[in-house]
């Protein structure tokens, strides 16, 4: 019955991974660049949650909302200040576009890590749980309240995001800009504002993932590196830029990893995801559900 326990816990981690990865996939879908500071959005979310709950003594639920706001504001600011040259004056940038994006987001990641390290301190903090329970067993599966409620919120957020993208006007605008920026602008969509919106959503989801996991992981400034790498794997596996691919790949990776760690090797579990990433990029660059014929 160990297998069922591993499966459920893997699925729960898959939900958290999905929350991280969909933002990255959306950003890639619309700008065709990888945001190497995505893990730091997660870290900022975790810290906002913990510090608000501990220093301001607000209820954990309010702290969660504050973390979401901080993530959205950070994502919006980053897009406004650093990402705009990628599509304003597009032609002149076409050669160095990818390099610029890597350098700037890599620099941003270093900046945020070290800023938090300096201002808050390098020691891990432990945040309060949304609800305090001890571990309990459902059949053969060991769970605790925080993990269960965090997984529930993640699942709800993912469903809400899917509905938002599919149904709402803004969501359709996002789809349009991701498919063809110029065509979308010709149809009267404000592509610049839509890109800001995408970064805000991406930051919000990553920050919420960090805040939800904060009671379980004890955030330290470099806590974002690990989930960020998972998100790269997922986004590549699901087909860069594909939202549904990312959601599916996140759940698959969560379950695979949880089995790999127990049955194959715990030490090499982080290398396992990266190996998948390399193999997919080399043999099936469009990912599991990605479009064929994308220039690679």
């Amino acid at each position, binding site marked *: 019955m160990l297998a069922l326990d591993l499966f459920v816990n893997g699925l729960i981690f898959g939900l958290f991974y999905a929350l991280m990865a969909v933002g990255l996939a959306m950003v*890639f879908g619309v700008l*065709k*660049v*990888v945001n190497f500071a995505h893990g730091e959005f997660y870290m900022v979310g975790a810290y906002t949650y913990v510090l608000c709950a501990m220093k301001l003594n607000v209820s954990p639920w309010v702290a969660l909302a504050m973390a979401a706001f901080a993530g959205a504001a950070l994502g919006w600011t980053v897009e406004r200040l*650093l990402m705009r*040259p990628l599509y304003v004056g597009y032609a002149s940038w076409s*050669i*160095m*576009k*990818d*390099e*610029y*994006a*890597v*350098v*700037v987001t*890599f*620099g*941003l*990641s*270093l*900046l945020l890590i*070290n*800023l938090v390290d*300096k201002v808050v301190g390098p020691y891990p903090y432990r945040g309060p749980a949304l609800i305090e329970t001890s571990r309990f067993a459902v059949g053969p599966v060991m769970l605790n309240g925080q993990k269960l409620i965090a997984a529930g919120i993640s699942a709800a957020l993912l469903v809400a995001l899917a509905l938002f993208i599919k149904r709402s006007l803004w969501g359709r605008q996002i789809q349009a800009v991701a498919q063809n920026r110029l065509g979308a602008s010709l149809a009267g969509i404000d592509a610049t504002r839509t890109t800001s919106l995408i970064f805000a959503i991406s930051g919000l989801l990553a920050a919420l993932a960090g805040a939800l996991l904060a009671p379980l992981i004890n955030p330290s400034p470099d806590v974002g*590196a690990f989930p960020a*790498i998972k998100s*790269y*794997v997922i986004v*590549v596996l699901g087909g*860069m830029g594909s939202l549904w691919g990312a959601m599916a790949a996140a759940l698959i990776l969560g379950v695979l990893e949880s089995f790999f760690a127990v049955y194959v090797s715990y*030490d*090499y579990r*982080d*290398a396992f995801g*990266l*190996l998948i*990433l*390399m193999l997919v*990029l*080399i043999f099936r*660059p469009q990912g599991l559900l990605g479009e064929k014929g994308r*220039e*690679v």
Partner: protein
Amino acid sequence: MNDARNLWSRRLRTDFRAALSIIAALAVVPLFVSSPYWLGILVVSIYFALLALGWNLLAGFTGQFSLAPAAFAMLGAYATALLDYHLKAPLAIGIPAGILATALLGWLLGRIVLRLKGPYLALTTLSFAEISRVVVGNSHEFTRGDQGLNVPTLMQSRVGYYYLFLAVLLGVLCALYLLMRARAGRFWLAIRDDETGAASRGIDVVRYKTLAFALSCAICGLAGSLYGTFSQLVSPELGLLLQTGLVISMVVIGGMGTLTGPVAGALIVYLSSELLRGVGNIQLIVFSLVVIVFARFFRTGLFGLATGRR
């Protein structure tokens, strides 16, 4: 056409002379600085200058934005250290073996990522770097894991090491200058600017891209191997992504696609980071900020600012 060629040759010559004058200035430094601490700092900054030159060959000249320079430094250092640890091989074999091993691995990685561009290339090299670090750090019985390995040293004298690193830097710089002046350099630049165009003009893109990978990684491996003998300890920390971040920031600040840029950038970044360390460990905050500002507003780096090319 003739003008354009002359323009490039002239620019490269100016660039090379500027880099040589930096090395000349470094050569007289031990006359004034005798503190072993500061000589050690200078040796480390020359180590970073070598990594920066190696990475710049790939990213700045050939347009292949790899995220693995620090990983190759680690692999070069470990090749030397493992040969000593398991086989008691002398450094005269160990160091060339480190260079050879990284050149081969670089060639292999170059073959693997041949068709990948931009973010795909960055992610694949990033995973290569992280996989090699995780594997080295976890193979406890073979590499002693995170404890690291002790390496014999080439000499005890700090000044001696300083001049050794400086000589290697000079050698690498001259080799790069000759390569860039020759056919290979023109081909690399053509591949960087327009790969399809280069192929259509009959350039063997596959061969020159893998050559750039092998050479760049060999330079990083050489730097790592020498650094291992200098610090007498190699550990997986050499391959941290943070180190790659430092190398990239040095090249971006100094000026990508030049010879002077990486050398000047490495010296400026590492030396001022030592000074800033006194002001309460803010060096990484300052540099990441500076890198973002340079990438955003001064894309040709300090070298571009100094020569008025934006």
